[in-house]
Structures are given as C-alpha cells and as structure tokens.
C-alpha cells in the first residue's frame, strides 16, 4: 500500500484541492434532498449554532482535530434544533422568528467563546479556530482529509443504497408511509447526513457561508435536469468543481468566500442560460410564441378575407388587410410570409399562394374547431384551454371531432372546400351572418 505515505506527503495545495472537492461533492448531494424538502435553511442554522460547540470542545479537550471539534459542533447544533422545536411547540412564536432568534443567539455565544479561546493564556490563537468563522482550507490537517474522505464514502454508499427510499419519502411522505416505509427514520437519516456534512465543512468554508455551499450546487443542478438522479450527479459535480476552482481563483482572499462566490457564479450562469428553465430560454420561448401567434393571425385573416371568393384566390388590397384587425408589425410579418412562400405581394396588394392557402386553411380549420369546442363544451374544457389551437386534432378524442364536424355540417356550415375548412362559429367582419 503506497497510498498512505503518498497522501501524507501531499503538498498543502493539493491537500486543499482534494479537501474542498470532497466537501463540495458531499454538500451537493445532501443539498439536493434538503432543497427538495424545503429544508435549505436547516443547514444554515446548524452551521451558525455549531460555533459555540467548536469553541467549547477546544476549551474542554484542548485538541483541534476535526473529529473533536465536530462532536462539539454537532452537540450545540442539535441543541439549537431542539430549542427551536420547543419554542415553536410551547410558545406563540412562529417558526421563522424562532429560527432567527436561536440562530443568532447561538452564533453570538460562539463569537464570545471564540474570543475567550483566542486569549494568549488559552492558546487557541495558534489552533486556528478563527478559520471556523470564514473558513480556511489551508488549515486542514492530513487527518482531516481522511475524515472528509470517510464521511464522503459513507454518504455515497448510503445514498446509492437508499436512493429509491429517499426519493419516495421526499416526493410523497404520506404515500411512502402507507407503503410501510419508516418515513421518520429515513427523514432523520437525510437530516443527519445534512448535519454531518455541514459540520465537517465548517473549518473549510466557515459557519457563515456553509449554508450557501449546501444550497447553491443543488439549486444550480435543478436548472439543468428534471430527473432526480441526474440532479444529484450534477450537484455533486458543481460542488466538486466549485471547491478547488474557488480556492485557486481566490488565492489571497478568504477561501470560503471564494468557493461560495464560484458556486454562486455557476448558479448565475445556469439561471440565465439553462435550457427550458433559464431566463434566456424562457424569454426566447415567449418571443417565438408571440411571433408564431402573429403569423397565424395573419394567415387566418388572409384566409377569412379571401374566403368568399374561393376557389379563386383574390388579390387583397393592403388597406383592407391592415384595417381588418389590429397589427403590431404588419410589414415585417408580410415580409416573413413572402419569404416563406405563403403570399405574393405587390406594392398595394396581397395574395395567398396555393401553398399559403392550404396552410392558412389548415390553421383556420383548427382554430374554428377549437373555438367551436370551447363554445359548446365550455363547462368541461378548463383542463385543456392552455393548449395551442394547433393541437386540437391531437388533443380532442376523434369521436368528439367527428361530432363537431357533423354539427357544422348539419347547420350547413361545413364548407366543401379543398382544405375542408369549417366556417367560423362566430360572425366574421367580412361575412354577413349566415341566417
């Protein structure tokens, strides 16, 4: 086994790289479950409340090993959670207020204890407990690295083993319980992983920023996928990347802050650029939708204006078209349609091409069937109204479509045209009412 001496001989910078990457990966994974369960702030609270525990553990045990300090951190962290539970249960204080009160009280106590520890007589100054405030991966001992790796391995094993169980409990606790899963135990296990990762991360990113380390990679990953397992992998990857990258980019600055800022920049980029959920994608989709709707309106209007003279395709005066309805950018639309080959236009007239006529007829038919459906089945339609008119033929059951068409035919309004376009169920400006 050459691994151990190799690791012991690591330079400080590679130790820091490995340590921050390990922490980032773990934080990403536990963060996913915390974020999905709406428990993102539990990590924040644990981290803040851990500070007095760290100082006390050092005062009592005189050791600065991550294991000793973590036990102290966990103790006060859990005490804080219990305090909140008691406050919420027995007083009229709301939960958010209780979290705020307990979090800052414990943190305040931690800062006071830390200043006691740092008095020269106590000797804590050399122990580097200050790193617990803002984080300092450079302070990591080789033994700490082993603790991180061990925690990481246990976490990976647990999540891989219990992925299905965690998933069903996170999504639908009642259902999981009705199936017989011990939901409380599984829930506590998820909370415990969150607590352990938070605590071991404290000396690296600090109590104030640890919450960001938990939340950011998970929230970033959520932008890129709709599958839980991929979200876990992505969150781990973002965390692993943010650790070393942040330490490297932020040389000369507090490392914890640099790591969190790196993770935040991943988040920012995803927020803007992620497909489907990103801001850019949403704006783009909205723009495309508007453009399509306007083009469809144009083709439908041209069809309606031409309808009375079919099967001849009339040349429509531009003025008639522009006055037919309200247009935002008629010229631009006409140009687009001309390029698409659906219309022929001269200076003052517009004429549908045969291709354009067929396209316009299809659009009009779909639109009219849809309108007809909404008019006749208004009471049962709300489930479907957000759909595109285009979808009508795929969306409605065939029997219903046939029925709608028959109804139009009975009223002698089903046109015998090439494209089989039903006439509009409401009155058009160009037509006189049928009766």
């Amino acid at each position, binding site marked *: 086994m050459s691994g151990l001496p190799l690791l012991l001989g690591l330079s400080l910078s590679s130790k820091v790289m490995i340590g921050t990457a390990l922490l980032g990966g773990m934080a990403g994974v536990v963060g996913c479950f915390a974020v999905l369960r709406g428990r993102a702030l539990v990590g924040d609270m644990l981290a803040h409340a851990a500070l007095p525990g760290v100082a006390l553990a050092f005062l009592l045990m005189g050791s600065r090993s991550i294991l000793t300090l973590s036990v102290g951190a966990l103790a006060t962290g859990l005490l804080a959670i219990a305090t909140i539970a008691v406050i919420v249960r027995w007083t009229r204080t709301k939960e958010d207020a209780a979290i705020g009160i307990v979090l800052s009280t414990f943190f305040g106590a931690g800062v006071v204890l830390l200043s006691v520890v740092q008095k020269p007589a106590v000797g804590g100054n050399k122990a580097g407990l200050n790193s617990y405030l803002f984080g300092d991966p450079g302070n990591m001992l080789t033994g700490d690295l082993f603790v991180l790796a061990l925690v990481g391995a246990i976490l990976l094993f647990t999540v891989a083993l219990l992925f299905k169980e965690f998933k069903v409990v996170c999504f639908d606790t009642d259902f999981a319980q009705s199936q017989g899963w011990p939901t409380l135990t599984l829930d506590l296990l998820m909370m415990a992983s969150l607590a352990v990762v938070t605590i071991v991360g404290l000396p690296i990113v600090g109590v104030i920023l640890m919450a960001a380390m938990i939340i950011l990679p998970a929230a970033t990953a959520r932008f890129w996928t709709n599958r839980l397992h991929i979200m876990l992998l992505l969150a781990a990857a973002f965390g692993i990347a943010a650790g070393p990258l942040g330490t490297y980019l932020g040389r000369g600055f507090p490392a914890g802050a640099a790591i969190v800022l790196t993770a935040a920049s991943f988040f920012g980029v995803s927020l803007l650029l992620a497909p489907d959920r990103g801001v850019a994608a949403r704006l783009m989709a909205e723009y495309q939708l508007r453009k399509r709707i306007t083009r469809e309106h144009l083709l439908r209007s041209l069809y309606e204006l031409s309808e009375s003279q079919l099967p001849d395709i009339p040349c429509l005066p531009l003025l008639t078209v522009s006055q037919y309805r309200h247009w935002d950018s008629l010229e631009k639309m006409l140009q687009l349609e001309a390029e698409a080959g659906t219309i022929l236009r001269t200076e003052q007239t517009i004429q549908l091409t045969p291709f354009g006529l067929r396209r316009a007829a299809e659009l009009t038919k779909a639109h009219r069937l849809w309108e007809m459906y909404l008019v006749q089945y208004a009471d049962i339609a709300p489930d479907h109204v*957000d759909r595109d008119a285009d979808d009508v033929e795929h969306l409605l059951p065939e029997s219903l479509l046939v029925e709608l068409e028959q109804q139009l035919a009975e009223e002698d309004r089903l046109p015998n045209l090439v494209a089989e376009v039903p006439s509009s169920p409401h009155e058009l400006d160009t037509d006189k009412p049928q009766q």
Partner: protein
Amino acid sequence: MPAPAFEIHDMTVAYQRRPVLWDIDLELPEGQLVGIVGPNGAGKTTLIKAALGLVPLASGKVEIYGKSYFEQRRLVGYVPQRESVDWDFPVTVRDVVLMGTYGKLGWFRRPGRAEREVADRCLDQVGMLPLANRQIRQLSGGQQQRVFLARALAQDAQIYFLDEPFSGVDAATEAAIVELLQTLRASGKTVLIVHHDIQTVREYFDYVILLNMRLIACGPVDVAFTKENLQKTYGGRLTILDEAAEAMRQREPNR
C-alpha cells in the same frame, strides 16, 4: 363467513385532544365502490388516514381482511389528495408510477424491467402512456390525478383508498376515473372514495359512508343514502342541496 374487506371498531381519532372522529364502527364487504360523504371538516380524509396508519388512533382498531393494517399493507393502494405533493419535483410521470411498485420491491432493490412494464401498463389503463416521459410539472390537474391513480394501480392492491380523486378534474378525467373504478370492482377490488358531490353518489357508488365527526350511516346506497340520513349529515344546509339533487335525479331518470 369470510372476513369483511374492511372493518373499523370503536375508532376515535383526535388531533391535540380535540376529537375529529368519534366511535366509528363499520364493516364493508368485498368488491364494492364505497363513497365517503360528509360536509367539510367531517373527518373524511382523517378516516382514510387513520385506516392507513398515517394518523394515530386515540382508541379502537382498523382491520383489513381480518388483520391489522401493518400486516396487510401489501393489499392496500392509496391515492392522496393531489395538492399534497410538490408537482415541481424532478421526476417523470413514469418515475411516479414506479413508486407504486416500491412496496413490493422492498428495501434496497431498484425497479427493473418488470416494474417498468407494470408501470407502463398502469399508465396505459388511465390513458397516460404517451406522456410517460413528461416531467410532472407539465401536467394539467386531471392528468396529475390520473398519474396518481396509475401509481395506485401499480401497487396491485385488493383495497384502494382514494382521497377526493374527482376534485378539480375535467369531465374527461372524471369519466375515465369512473370507468376505472368499475373495472376494479369487476375484478373484485374494494374501493373507498372520499367524495364531495352528493348529486353523483347514486350514480357512482354501491355503498355509502355518511360521516360528520361521527358515523351517520354506512350501507348500500339504496338503504343508507336517504333524505333523513343526509339531513343528519349536513344539517340545515342540506335542504337546498338535497332538493337540487332530487330535482337532478328526476330530470334524468335513466342515469
């Protein structure tokens, strides 16, 4: 005589010392569609949750085919209220339905090909197979409800508990659910359904449980779903509802 499919003895359920259900005592035979009817706050959902062991009983016991719920939970399918989960959760429609198979899979085992086939068959039964790979956020209310139904079907149970499956769904989904219920009954399953609309009780159910914190009546619809019982369940408010329901029924005698 075989044990009844579902049995409650002297059950009382209390939230923080305030009783929600008092001394419920009832028995249901196998193969019935059972409506659970009562005003808001009558404890309909609580009845189901108590039966499934989701809320503790203050007293009494619940039995499924003669044994406790914990011994018989493989026989039980559950459809919670649609609003009870986060529909933005990162799972697909098929993932949700697969959760129905988790109970039989047991600890640590992952769903495989066989489970996926079960899930797809159940999705097909509710007409949602084409949407199997959709993220659940993109579903309409009626589609969400069908996904939940498919998940319960994947549990392959003997007795199903459905919490307001008809609330906020379109007519097409309502019709699909009713058809599904009839299929279940035909194959000998028992289905308990929390239901809000007393006008459709006669049309949909064989049995009815009338509930208003205590049990008003439990029996075949013809026997238990009477004007007197409804009045006891809904109090003064019923008169209007009741007459409307009666009027509806007389207008459409073939229903």
